[in-house]
């Protein structure tokens, strides 16, 4: 059986689901809406008799780590800034190691980066804080200009780009942006900061599918189990249950 192999966690997922739903559902014959799901799982279970194709790629390059939107400077600045917001420590990796800058780059290249599902019709007016985001900037414009501004500000103040100044200096620059302590020509500094912080946390904790949270290390630090099929067996338990996390990749059923 393929699910004897340690690196085939999707099999584990199906097996567990069947086990739990089996206990939960008992012997009832399933009609209606879930017939399809359980049927599909059963079919796949039969199929598992054929072993999965052996892993042929031998190098461990991650071909997903390349740039879709940022230039090199913006990428490196994003990486350094994100690392200050979520630094490596004895609990585990920081933003850099988790691939957060790749995550942000990929998000900026996506429909989210161009605000394609937001209301962007003019006119734009100055808003009260209760009325939310009312800037003309698309997210990708705000982030790219903001990263350039981090560099520009560091260059003026410390005569070095952001990536080359000391961590404490980087924190001071970020704090100045956060609290809008600076006048920038092109960019609303605190808006940029808030969005960048948000993106950083998303990159730490989103499914690894999106380029961050590398190897689910963000989840592991928090003991977050990712996405399991069922918790019916654990929900009443008094003690804390640690589970090896699973990602969406583990649920993919191809062919």
């Amino acid at each position, binding site marked *: 059986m393929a699910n004897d192999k340690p690196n085939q966690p999707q099999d584990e997922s199906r097996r567990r689901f069947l086990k739990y739903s089996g206990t939960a559902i008992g012997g*009832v014959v399933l009609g209606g809406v879930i017939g399809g799901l359980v049927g599909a799982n059963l079919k796949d279970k039969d199929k598992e008799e054929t072993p999965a194709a052996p892993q042929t790629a031998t190098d461990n390059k991650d071909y997903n780590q390349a740039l879709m939107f940022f230039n090199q400077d913006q990428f490196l600045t994003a990486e350094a800034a994100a690392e200050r917001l979520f630094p490596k420590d004895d609990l585990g990796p920081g933003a850099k190691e988790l691939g957060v800058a790749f995550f942000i780059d990929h998000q900026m290249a996506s429909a989210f980066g161009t605000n394609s599902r937001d209301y962007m019709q003019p006119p734009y007016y100055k808003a009260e*804080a*209760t009325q939310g985001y009312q800037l003309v900037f698309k997210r990708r414009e705000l982030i790219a200009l903001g990263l350039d501004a981090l560099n520009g500000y560091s260059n003026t103040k410390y005569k070095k780009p952001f990536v080359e100044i000391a961590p404490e200096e980087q924190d001071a620059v970020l704090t100045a942006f956060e609290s809008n302590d600076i006048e920038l020509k092109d960019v609303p500094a605190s808006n940029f900061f808030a969005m960048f912080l948000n993106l950083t946390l998303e990159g730490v904790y989103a*499914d690894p599918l999106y380029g961050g949270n590398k190897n689910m290390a963000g989840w592991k630090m928090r003991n977050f189990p990712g*996405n399991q099929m069922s*918790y019916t067996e654990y929900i009443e338990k*008094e003690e804390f249950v640690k589970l090896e996390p699973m990602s969406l990749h583990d649920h993919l059923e191809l062919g």
Partner: protein
Amino acid sequence: MATKLPKVPVVIVGMGWVGGIIAAELSKAGISVVGIERGKSRDTQDYYHVHDELRYAARYELMQDLSKETVAFRNTMKMRALPMRTYGSFLLGDGLGGAGVHWNGQYYRFLPYDFEIYSKTVERYGKKKIPENMTIRDWGITYEQLEPYFVKYEQMAGISGEKEIPSNIGAMSTPFPTGPMKKSPGMKLFENAAKKLGYHPYVIPSANLSEVYKNPDGVERAPCQYCGYCERFGCEYGAKADPVVTVLPVAKNTGKFELRTHSNVTKIIHDGKKATGVTYVHTPTGEEYTQPADVVILAGYLFTNVKLLLTSKLGEPYDPQTEKGSVGRNYAYQVNGASTSAFYEDREFNLAMGAGALGSSIDDFNGDNFDHSDLNFLHGANIRFTQTGLRPIQYQPVPADTPKWGAEFKKATIHNANRVLSVTGQGASMPNRYHYLDLDPEYKDAFGMPLIRMTFDFEDQDRELVKFIAQKTKAIADEMGATKTEIHDSIKQYNIVPYQSTHNTGGTIMGADPKTSVVNNYLQMWDAENVFICGASNFPHNSGYNPTSTVGALAYRTAEGVQKYLDKGGSLV
């Protein structure tokens, strides 16, 4: 020119819970129904990869596309309303099943008090108790009248709840069809603390099934797996009651129901007395159609219900200056913000696990279940502990005064990820003369029609309610054996940025008086007898509860009204 289609008996605008229930009831009775839905079709297969916090919770995969349509907002009439450009305060449904796909499934019948709030307040405290500009009124229907329709919804959806319910909530003629959800340790701590204080906790009635259930229509569904991806997600198991796995397949099986997706209704066609049909745009092609019908039912959630009446010039728009007219009045919401967080240094809880409707609650401080004589507010809140599944992007628990980023922030969020239980109040929202919906003078949707403009703020009533309820949450949390507790007891202005709830109410309210309400107690429009409007838009105020139980009951009532109307015509009251 719009293409004119053959006439049908009934056309429904919107295929969420309301549209789905009415479609099923009418088609089962042999009446032909066309259901028009602006979004796409859906089924449970779409959710095999749904456990994705970024896509569904942070990027709002299942919600209305705001680039096409949104709402303009201002706190007061003195401000300029601006469009809600990105999501925040509430999340609008779109596509088959509407918000009934990504809801939690917490199920609460409104209190008997709610339906007669004006009379009962006057009776107990006198007229003076009601502050100036608070426009509470009786609903034109009583709890007892609505009771059989609650039962219908419960049997259809398979609501899971305790057999015995506390006596301070509405009596049930028929018990819940399935038993309560499982109890997590947090729920036990909450219930024990509440009991110790003399309150009456119960497991939240749930539309996430606790066990296999076959409903009276023969639809069988699997039990909830407590998967933790429920609120903002669709349920791949069909365990969460959702129109797509309950009422819509039943309607389809009758052969009397035709569904048209990707079709956005832009107008009600009428002659001032009766509607003759609706106009809609098929969004992929941009082609326009008119669908003539004997009965037009608006089931598009309150923003659409109000907007179609106003843009089609049906009914009289509400004017807050003169208090004349009724379309758009009594917009209300939900007053959240009262809560206490309990931090545990000595233990961790399985908080990633949970279900949308998993939790326990009390109603000892909801409705008029406590004496308001010396209090500066009316109504109250359902106080609860819920375990809906906490996910790491959107949940960053830290004690007050923790920095918002950096090493300390990282440490605190990781340390506290599974150590905080929150006791929260879901507060009622009383209507106000100056809280209303109308058409925005400036901003337009993708079809060139004005956006709905919302004018809404929190008032002293709301701030007082939060202050009082917060103390009660603290008292309970303090009994829950935590290392320390932190109270949150103040709200300021209403802010459209943070998510609060998708419990928007009012705008086409029901009542006994045609002058101050839009529909009668069959949800039939006073000004056009063949138009029925149903949803939380019918609520004259919002209770300290989630709305869908009452919405569902009203939908069954509407279906009955439409059948009566098709039989004999005329006003039903």
